């Protein structure tokens, strides 16, 4: 899986690259519009992450160019501009997703994976993690092939965990993923805790191993070890 990261802020681009590489993505980084244009004309990527404000151009142009070259490439716009018009414009000209800065790397990771899944030809609509199987179309979860009913938020949480397996996740990132960023409430962090508790209980009742590890003072990690 090849990903092109077009972001002029080198530190951020590096962080994104590090994070995604850990999950087996092959990341290439460019910092200017011109360099990005050259790259997309020469190589093909599964996913391109584009910053809208580049020093030598506006990222929208890249999105349009990409759409002409390869329709199957997934495009995610990242922008400091949270303007809804920008979001709509981005989606209209063919980007698949729009993320506003600042975002959590785990959120970007989850979005990239979901995008790649959707884009891959004859895309699998199943995610398997050891004994846990998720049917994405039916939004159903099976543990050892036994149906495991989860609430909407618990399902989202599990999917988020599996997309970010082996990554430590902060409570804030999880809360934001589940409730969006307009929950300006400290309580949401406690609710994250109770949701994780419920999810764990439901999975383990069906015989799944306990994959959710809490990291003291930071958050949680979903991993098998």
């Amino acid at each position, binding site marked *: 899986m090849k990903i092109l990261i077009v972001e002029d802020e080198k530190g951020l681009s590096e962080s994104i690259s590090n994070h995604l590489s850990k999950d087996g993505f092959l990341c290439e980084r460019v910092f200017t519009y011109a360099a990005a244009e050259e790259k997309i004309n020469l190589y093909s990527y599964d996913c391109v992450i584009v910053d809208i404000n580049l020093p030598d151009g506006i990222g929208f142009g890249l999105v349009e160019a990409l759409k002409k070259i390869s329709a199957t490439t997934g495009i995610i716009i990242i922008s400091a501009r949270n303007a809804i018009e920008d979001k709509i414009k981005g989606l209209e000209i063919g980007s698949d997703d729009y993320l506003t800065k600042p975002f959590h790397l785990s959120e970007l990771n989850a979005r990239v994976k979901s995008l790649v899944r959707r884009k891959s030809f004859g895309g699998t609509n199943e995610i398997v993690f050891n004994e846990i199987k998720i049917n994405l179309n039916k939004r159903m979860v099976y543990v050892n092939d036994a149906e495991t009913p989860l609430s909407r938020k618990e399902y989202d949480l599990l999917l988020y965990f599996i997309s970010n397996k082996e990554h*430590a996740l902060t409570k804030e990132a999880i809360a934001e993923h589940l409730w969006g960023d307009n929950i300006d409430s400290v309580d949401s962090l406690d609710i994250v805790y109770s949701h994780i508790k419920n999810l764990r209980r439901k999975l383990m009742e069906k015989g799944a191993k306990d994959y959710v590890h809490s990291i003291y*003072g930071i958050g949680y990690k979903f991993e098998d070890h």
Partner: protein
Amino acid sequence: MKLLTKTTLYYLGFSVIIYLSIAVAFYYVTEYLVYEDVETKLLSEKKDFETFTENNGLWYKSCYFVQNKIEFVPSVYHDDKVVFIDTLLYDKNNYQLIPFRQVTFYEKLGSDYYKIHIRKSLIESDKLLKYLTYTLLILMVIGLSVTYFVQRWISKGIWKPFNNTLSKVKSFKLTKEQELELSYSNIYEFEELNGVLNKMVRKMQKDYKNLKEFTQNASHEMQTPVALINARVEELIQSKNLTDKQVYLIQEINNSSNRISKLTQGLLLLSKIENRQFQEIKNVDFDVLIKRKIEELEELFSHKQLKVEYEKNGNFVFYINPDLADVLLNNLIANAIKHNFFGGTIIIKLSDDGFEIINTGDTLSIDPKTMFQRFRKGKTSLSTGLGLAIVKQICDVYGLSIEYYYQNKLHHMKVNREELVIGL
């Protein structure tokens, strides 16, 4: 008091005083002239009389037939004084008293002294004086009323550009980006005023725009570095074997950077609402929105074991940006959750003109008057302090009124469509 009324009153007051003084002066001047004339005539008659008596030694009563014209009274006392007085005498022909001017002097006729009165009727001069005064007064009243109305009429015309300017300045709102279009006036003072106002408003608009742009730019520019901090923190927490001290430090950095990002997002949202950058507006059915919100926030309610009641007493459909309607409701309900007891209650009431969110909770630790200001928050709150400021801004921009009150140990937050005041 209106300027026009005030100037008119002053004008009328002074005019009446001046006109009356003129009338009085005119009266006395005329009277003086009449007397002088009569007295000159009387003196010349006195002279005639003296010449006559000198030549004839005697005065025959019959030689002067005019009624009350001349009178002799024998007198022992005599002096050389000549005295003029006014007197009233009965006129046998007209059966009425008639004013006379009389001159009195003493004269020796033969061997005896006589007190002699020579008189002249003032009836004609009196009439003259009377009619002159009346005419003058009537003319003055007419003149005064004509000038009064003319002055009012002219003033109205003259002050029209000023009143135009005033009504335009009154209806001018800085937050709405409109031009202050003042109409041209050919009166120098008003044109100067308009010029100054135009200049001032342009400066204000420019400053306001700069301020807004600054907020927006500053928030924008902060997003990227904050994103970098967040990303680096996320990378850092991936490392294994962090010491407790390190975890503590990371936690602090993480909390702070999350706060900054929430703050900048809040400020950006505020300035965007202010700048009216949300262009899509449509009719939003608040019944649907409230039901959806209650469902969305279900976990937050049940987590705090809050009892939520929704009373639908009407249909509130309002013309607003749907995303902002969502933010509005979201912030208010989030507020009702945040400041609630464990196991408390939230009541949402919907009517035809708005909605009300009522919740249990501790008494307010801040002044309710300041609760909609930016960065105003209770002691215990860890929030950004922008939630209610955003709510207020949305209400202001779309013409909703918001009111907070505390009644029966319940906090009420009432949002209503603003009554349209016509002509405002």
